[in-house]
Structures are given as structure tokens and as C-alpha cells.
């Protein structure tokens, strides 16, 4: 398949045909199947999927963070700024992680070490990767805490994680991630554990930092609303596969995959009157233990036909890329893509 081309920016991340199978007590789990995409410098790619769609496994595998014993199979290539990740030694990877690529996880409570001060935790990558002295690292830490919106950073720096609220802890996690000016930031459900008001603050902070530092960002979430107004490109995953990928505006104005459409329609809207009947998707996401042929969404799909249950649809370029103004591509994996516009009014 051909990844979408954004001519303006140099390539940052090039993932091709990534397939990951994990060992589990119940057998082999097909966590990620043949996923390809590219990310250019300064771009945000939103990856949307439900739990079990493989989005987190995919994100972790980009930096080889999956426990070695649990990975049964890994195919495909991940090229970061021209270097193939799977060819690197553990030592070389260590140098990459935290310096060129940083990650933010869902739960800020467990991402921080409870017995170390904020200063020690933010300074660590500064001393490790940038070779700053303890004194310089401390100064830089205070600046970073300030940049991520922690009030009274000079005093907060000596506090422990338990003395901070959830939103503040996530800011500390972001400060650690930004410490070495990474080229790529992987944010895996960065706001799921937070309240809506704090969620907005954190997402705004990430967007601002990303623009300032011209980082590439992978924003992984289960919430279409989180990526809608913040991602340049949105990839939708279902059962380990990429089912649709398009620039955000194109995706919302002309979604092609029935799953994207169903997901979009099942979400309650603020703008709808009360007691509006929701268009629920029947059934539930599949287990990933067996690799039965056919489209994984077919059993829940209202448009499914015979062929969908027999063959796995390949990722293809949407034939009616109506957005002719932009040199972008709209990809989907469906034999019978939906044509009508599902969105329309704003939320």
C-alpha cells in the first residue's frame, strides 16, 4: 500500500506492514496486523480505536517496548528518521528512547516513581541523554515545569508525586517527555484518566508544545472527539488492523469505512435533543485469538455481504478523493465503502 504523501515536510516515522503477534495463555494474539502509515515532522497523527484494537501494542512496539517474551512474532519495518528500529541494539535503543522519542502513558499515577522527587525524575533524562550537570539539570527542570504550566515550579520541584493532583502529575509526565526535545512524541491515551476540564488543559498544552517544538506526535485515544480537532491525520484501527486513514477534515466529511461511520454515529452528541435514540453498533469487538478470514468488522457491519466474510479487504486508496486541493490520500480497507457524508453539523 502507498502511505499518504505530505510533500512539505521530511519524513519522521515510516511504519510499513507492521505485524505483531503476542503469546497469551489462550494462544497467539493477533494484536497488530499489517499496519502501515507515515508521519512527517511536526504532524499529529491521531490513532483511534477501542480497547483491544491493537493501538497501544502498536505504539509500544515502535520503540521495542513490549516485553520480549510476550512477542511471538514481529514483522514489518519501523523507520525513524532514516534508521530501522528493529536493527538497533538495546544500547542504541536506550539512547533513542527519551531523547528522540518520548512517550506519555495513560495513568499519571503509575507513570511516576512515588519515592523520588519531581526534580530527580525530570532531571534523569537531562543528565542521561544531554549530559547536564546536576545543578544545570535542576535549573532546566524548573524551566520545563514552568513551560508545562505548573505554578510555583521552583518549590514544586522538590515535592513528591503524591503531593500533586492528577492533572499536575500528567504535566510532570509531559515535562519528562519534553525534557530532551524529542522529534517524536507518542501519547497513549494521555487524558483518559483525567477530568474533562483537565483533559482540555492537557490537550491544549500538548498541541502548544508540539507546535512550538515542531515535534511529530502520535495521539492515541479511544475518543474520536479528542483527535477530531487536534490531529492532522486520523487513523482508525479495528481488531489490530488499520481500517481507515485520512486527513482529519476529509475523514469527518467523507468517511468511507462502515466502522468509522458506525463509531461516529454511536456517540451521543451535545447538540442532539435529549432522549435521542443512539445508533448502537450490535455485538462487540472480536477476540484476536483466531485469524479467521474476512473483515473483522463484518459480523457487526450493516453493509456486510458474502465476500466480507470470506476475504480480508486490503487497504486501498479511496477512489473519490474529493479533496483535490490537497495532495493527500484517503485510505480504507473495505470492499463496499460507504459513500454518504456522515458528519455535517458541528457538535
Amino acid at each position: 500500500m502507498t502511505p499518504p504523501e505530505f510533500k512539505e515536510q521530511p519524513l519522521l516515522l515510516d511504519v510499513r506492514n507492521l505485524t505483531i503477534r503476542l503469546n497469551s495463555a489462550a494462544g497467539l494474539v493477533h494484536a497488530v496486523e499489517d499496519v502501515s502509515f507515515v508521519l512527517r515532522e511536526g504532524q499529529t497523527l491521531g490513532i483511534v480505536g477501542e480497547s483491544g484494537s491493537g493501538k497501544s501494542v502498536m505504539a509500544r512496539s515502535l520503540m521495542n517496548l513490549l516485553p520480549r517474551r510476550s512477542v511471538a512474532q514481529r514483522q514489518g519495518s519501523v523507520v525513524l528518521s532514516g534508521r530501522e528500529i528493529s536493527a538497533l541494539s538495546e544500547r542504541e535503543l536506550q539512547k533513542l528512547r527519551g531523547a528522540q522519542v518520548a512517550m506519555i502513558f495513560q495513568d499519571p499515577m503509575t507513570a511516576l516513581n512515588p519515592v523520588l522527587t519531581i526534580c530527580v525524575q525530570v532531571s534523569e533524562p537531562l543528565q542521561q541523554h544531554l549530559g547536564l550537570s546536576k545543578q544545570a539539570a535542576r535549573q532546566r527542570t524548573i524551566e520545563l515545569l514552568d513551560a508545562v504550566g505548573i505554578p510555583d515550579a521552583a518549590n514544586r520541584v522538590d515535592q513528591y508525586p503524591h503531593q500533586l493532583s492528577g492533572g499536575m502529575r500528567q504535566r510532570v509526565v509531559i515535562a519528562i517527555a519534553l525534557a530532551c526535545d524529542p522529534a517524536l512524541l507518542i501519547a497513549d491515551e494521555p487524558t483518559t484518566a483525567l477530568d474533562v476540564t483537565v483533559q482540555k488543559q492537557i490537550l491544549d498544552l500538548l498541541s502548544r508544545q508540539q507546535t512550538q517544538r515542531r515535534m511529530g506526535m502520535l495521539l492515541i485515544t479511544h475518543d474520536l472527539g479528542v483527535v477530531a480537532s487536534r490531529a492532522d491525520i486520523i487513523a482508525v484501527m479495528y481488531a489490530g488492523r488499520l481500517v481507515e486513514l485520512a486527513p482529519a477534515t476529509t475523514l469527518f466529511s467523507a468517511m468511507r469505512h462502515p466502522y468509522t461511520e458506525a463509531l461516529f454515529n454511536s456517540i451521543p452528541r451535545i447538540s442532539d435533543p435529549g432522549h435521542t435514540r443512539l445508533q448502537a453498533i450490535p455485538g462487540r469487538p472480536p477476540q484476536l485469538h483466531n485469524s479467521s478470514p474476512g473483515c473483522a468488522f463484518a459480523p457487526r457491519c450493516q453493509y456486510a455481504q458474502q465476500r466480507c466474510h470470506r476475504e480480508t479487504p486490503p487497504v486501498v486508496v479511496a477512489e473519490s478523493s474529493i479533496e483535490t486541493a490537497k495532495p493527500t490520500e484517503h485510505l480504507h480497507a473495505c470492499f463496499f465503502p460507504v459513500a454518504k457524508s456522515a458528519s455535517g453539523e458541528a457538535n
Partner: protein
Amino acid sequence: MSDKPVQTSPLQLRDRGDIVLRIEHLSVNFRAGKQTVQAVSDLSLDVARGETLGLVGESGCGKSTVGRAIMQLPPPTAGKVLFQGQDLGLLSGEALRQTRTALQMIFQDPISSLNPRRKVRDIVAEGLQIWGRPSQQARVREVMEAVGLDPDAVADRRPHQFSGGQCQRICIARSLALDPDVLICDEPVSALDVSVQAQILNLLEDMKQRYQLTMVFVAHNLAVVRNVSDRVAVMYLGKLCEIGDTGSVYARPAHPYTRALLASIPDMNPLSRHQQDGLPLLHGDLPSPANPPSGCRFRTRCPNAQSLCAEKEPLMQAVRQTVQNDPQSKATVEVSDHFVACHFPL
């Protein structure tokens, strides 16, 4: 702040014959070490028959505690919970347990609220067995079918064989078995997959019609609450800040906190990205409920706060609106069923 809570006049309580649940001046305190945390402070609201009341707010605002206090789990520190005119706080032991069968609850995590060692059939039938209700088998079949579970296929299985959505259906079946009047739902869909949430929300709506339920729906997702509720109550740090008809509250929020909450909802429109910064934003985090701010509890984060807000706690008042026909006139009318506790309502 003085130890005695300021007695707000519960303007928002309605004088109607069909009030099923009435909460007056409810306070719930918890001990946390040497401190006392006021989880709920002087909260009054009511729910009419067949109505769904949505209870929203950030985590730690006391919304779940209200749900539990209604069930007397644990009993409130102060205030009354009246169920069909009966003060639940005055009942004890057997009488409370008897009355409480009419109030049922479902919880956020459907998997951990089911006993993993029991069969689905026994889980759903437990209430019926305890109370020795007649024709238990038939009732179990009926409620299981009502929630979309095939009794023949699932009755002998155990919870671990089901997905989260299915487990929530089992929880709903269990709560309906005793034919309750009131269903209290504490974040019933927030642990579920996005694609399954709509199924459960539709199911709750169907069950409400079929069994003539009155519902209290506690949730942090404002879009979900918009969909299910007739009235909505917004809580902040244990206090009620705004209550009223859902359409009115969402269309014209009168409390700065409600407006900020609504503005925080992620926008589904990708074209709106450049407009976002214009919206009022809430700064900072929730203050500690052990040591709430004086006066209005929201004032520390409120963009409109003035000195009065720190001195005096705002009382609940009816929301007023300028007369629509005549934009020139300064005359205002009270909006029916919309109340706000703010010195400077929007």
C-alpha cells in the same frame, strides 16, 4: 468557613404530587485521618416519577456519594432522603432493607460488581430469593430477556465468560428483578467500549419505559448525560451549583462552572481547531474538599469571581432571562425550572 453550613433555601425543590425522591440539606462527611472531608454539603434536589436526573461534575465533586447516600450507604451525616414521602434515615434494620428493594443501583465496573463464582442465574435471582418472591424462575427469565440476554444460553455461565457490556446487562437484569421504582446508575457506561456504550444507553432507556423507572444517572460525560436526562444537576466540590431542565441548562448555562464544563467537551468538528482558544477555560485543579474555599467554592477557578464571592456563599436562585421579543428592554423573566447558585449568573 464556619462549622455550620449556611442553610440555603431549597428553591429548586418542586411542590408537586409526583415527587418520588426528595433530598433535603444532604451532607456527607468522611473522616480522612485528622481531617473531615465534606464530600457533599447541604445539597437539596428532587426527582419526579418517570424522570431521569443527571448528576454531573468532576471526579471528587461528590456525585457518586449522593447516589450512595440516597441508598443510605452509608447514611448521610445530615439532611433527609425522602422516598415517596418516607424519610429513609428514620428507618432502621429490617424496615430499611424492605423499603430499599424499591431502590436499586448499578455501578461503573460491571465485572467487579458481579461475584465471579456464581452463575448468572443465581446472581439475577438473589434478590428474589432473599425476599422469597413468588415465581422466581419466570421473573429471572423475563428480566434476562428484557436486557437482551438469552436465558437458555447464558443462565448457567459465570461472569468471566462475558464481556464488559454483557456484564452490565447482567447487572441491569439483577437490579430490575425486584421491580424497583428508582434506579441509581453510577457511571454505568464509562468503563465500556465506545461501540458498546450506545447499546447500554439505549437499553437503559428501554428499561425505563418498560418498567416505569425513575432514574438518577451519575456520570462525568456531559454528552451522555444530555442524552439520557430530563433534568440535570451540576455539582462542584460537594455543592450543587446549577439544576434545571436539561435543555435549558445545556443551551444557556447560568453558572460559570457549567459553562466551563460544556466548553471542555472535545469538539467533533475538525474545522474548529483554530477557534478553541476563544472559549472560556478553567484553570487549575479542584481544591481539596477537606479545606474548601470560603464563600462560593468555585471562586478560586472562576473567571468572574469578585470579592463578594469569597465573603458570602451564593444561594440558589431562579435563572432570569431578558424578554426575548424586546431586546431593548431590560425586563427579565424567570426561566421555568432552572436554578443557579451564583452571585453573578451568566
